[in-house]
């Protein structure tokens, strides 16, 4: 269960106008501005839900995921994940969650994937029998048999992403954070990944928080949609409700664009 209450987070960003003179002036004093990433954000996610977390670029999605996975500390607000405050009990917390950042890799580049898995097994202190069971199961479901023996650098993006997802699940996390997991994937890989996530959720009751710009991901997976913009929660409802509230929009992307327009984000 994830409880987020009045979460606020802002960053300092240095800004200056272009040009040499301004650049020289910036040597002495740099102007920084505060940019608000999360602005009094509150929501709750129950166990076993698959929540689609959507919003335009820069809305604060990744910031939320980073706070929930204990990487960032918010400026203010409360957050409890299965009774833990992520940034205060980071090690205990991350042992119970799985995280996949679609644009980043957690596999060692030059060695076969299985060696990276073996390392993760030791880092998460998964005992041998449980590891073997999980590995066999994930290998079957994600069709990893030959990939495991291949160095990560020689995998296609789709193959690598299947391995990344498996890597995040070797330690049986109760919670899975997926940050743009289908980015850049072809249709076959996307469908395979969605099917796997659904099955995992049904079989194990794993809670999934998914950020994506792909509305088909949301349609296929999410039982509930959270829309954020400029750090605020704008909408909380089922995918069908959202869809029904925007009649006359054709494709899913048009629907999303209409949704963003409606809230002015």
């Amino acid at each position, binding site marked *: 269960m994830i409880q987020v209450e009045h979460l606020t987070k802002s*960053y300092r960003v240095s800004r200056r106008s272009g040009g040499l003179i301004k650049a020289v002036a910036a040597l002495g004093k740099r102007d920084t501005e505060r940019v608000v990433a999360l602005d009094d954000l509150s929501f709750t996610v129950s166990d076993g839900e698959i929540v689609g977390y959507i919003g335009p670029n820069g809305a604060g999605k990744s910031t939320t995921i980073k706070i929930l996975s204990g990487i960032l500390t918010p400026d203010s607000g409360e957050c409890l994940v299965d009774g833990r405050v992520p940034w205060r009990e980071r*090690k205990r917390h991350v042992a119970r969650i799985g995280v996949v950042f679609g644009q980043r890799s957690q596999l060692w580049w*030059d060695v076969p994937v299985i060696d990276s898995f*073996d390392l993760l097994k030791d880092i998460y202190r998964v005992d041998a029998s449980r590891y073997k069971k999980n590995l066999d199961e994930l290998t079957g479901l994600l069709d990893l048999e030959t990939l495991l023996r291949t160095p990560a650098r020689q995998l296609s993006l789709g193959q690598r992403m299947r391995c990344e997802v498996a890597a995040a699940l070797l330690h049986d996390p109760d919670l899975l954070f997926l940050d743009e997991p289908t980015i850049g994937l072809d249709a076959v890989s996307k469908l395979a990944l969605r099917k796997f996530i659904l099955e995992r959720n049904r079989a194990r009751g794993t809670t999934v928080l998914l950020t994506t710009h792909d509305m088909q991901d949301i349609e296929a997976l999410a039982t509930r949609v959270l829309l954020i913009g400029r750090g605020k929660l704008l909408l909380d409802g089922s995918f069908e409700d959202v869809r029904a509230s925007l009649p006359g929009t054709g494709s899913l992307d048009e629907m999303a664009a209409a949704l963003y327009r409606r809230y002015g984000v």
Partner: protein
Amino acid sequence: MGRFHPHLSFFRMQLIKGLQYRTAAWAGIFTQFFWGFMQIQLYRALYAAHQSTFPMALSGLVSYIWLRQAFLALLNTWSYEYELFDMILSGNVALELCRPVGLYGMWFARNAALRVSRAALRCGPILIISALLPAPWGLNPPASWGAFAAFLLSLILTLGVTCAMTLIVYFSCFYTLSSQGLRTVLDPVTEFLNGAIVPLPFMPAWLSSVLRYTPFGAMVNAPLRIYSGDIRGMELTETLLLQVFWLAALTGLGWLIQHRGLKRLCLQGG
């Protein structure tokens, strides 16, 4: 397969990775052997010219050179894993924070594992060949069993001190965006001051007596001179204690830099 402590598991990983680059290992062995041989020739010429002013026994110096060549990967300060710099600069370090272990310990283990695995893959041929070489050129046996035991202990401490130094360079990336400048200055200066290029006894007396008390004297210099008995008695005890002190001091400093760097990262955004 059994279960390793998370930190130990890095040794297995780095060994696997090291075995992946076979050509690099063979090229390394060849270069290090050739370089060692050249240096010995150079020092023999100096020894022949000024035997009386030579500050170390030639046999001890020859062993110093061969041991340094054999354990180069363990002892040099410039064994970096460039992926780690990229990880900090690209923000991928965030993923490292998703692991249920501390960042400093994990990276210390990673760097130590890299050094040990590289050295393990390379030291064999160099040690064997150099031990088989005839008298003036060959690796000599240690001064005594005691000296050998002290050498092993000191070698481990050197590994620690050197790793702690390397980690400070990694974590400086939290502040500078590029570690290139620091590395350009630090690596050659350290290599010179720690006796990796010229052993400390060959330096001016005032300099070598100062360096003894700095972290530089607690690195490659210590084990290689202990081996041949060039450091012994009270000086040996003192050297080992200084190594322990610098290991603790540099580890503490590195941890602090890491801790504050992460805080900054957490405040500024990933």
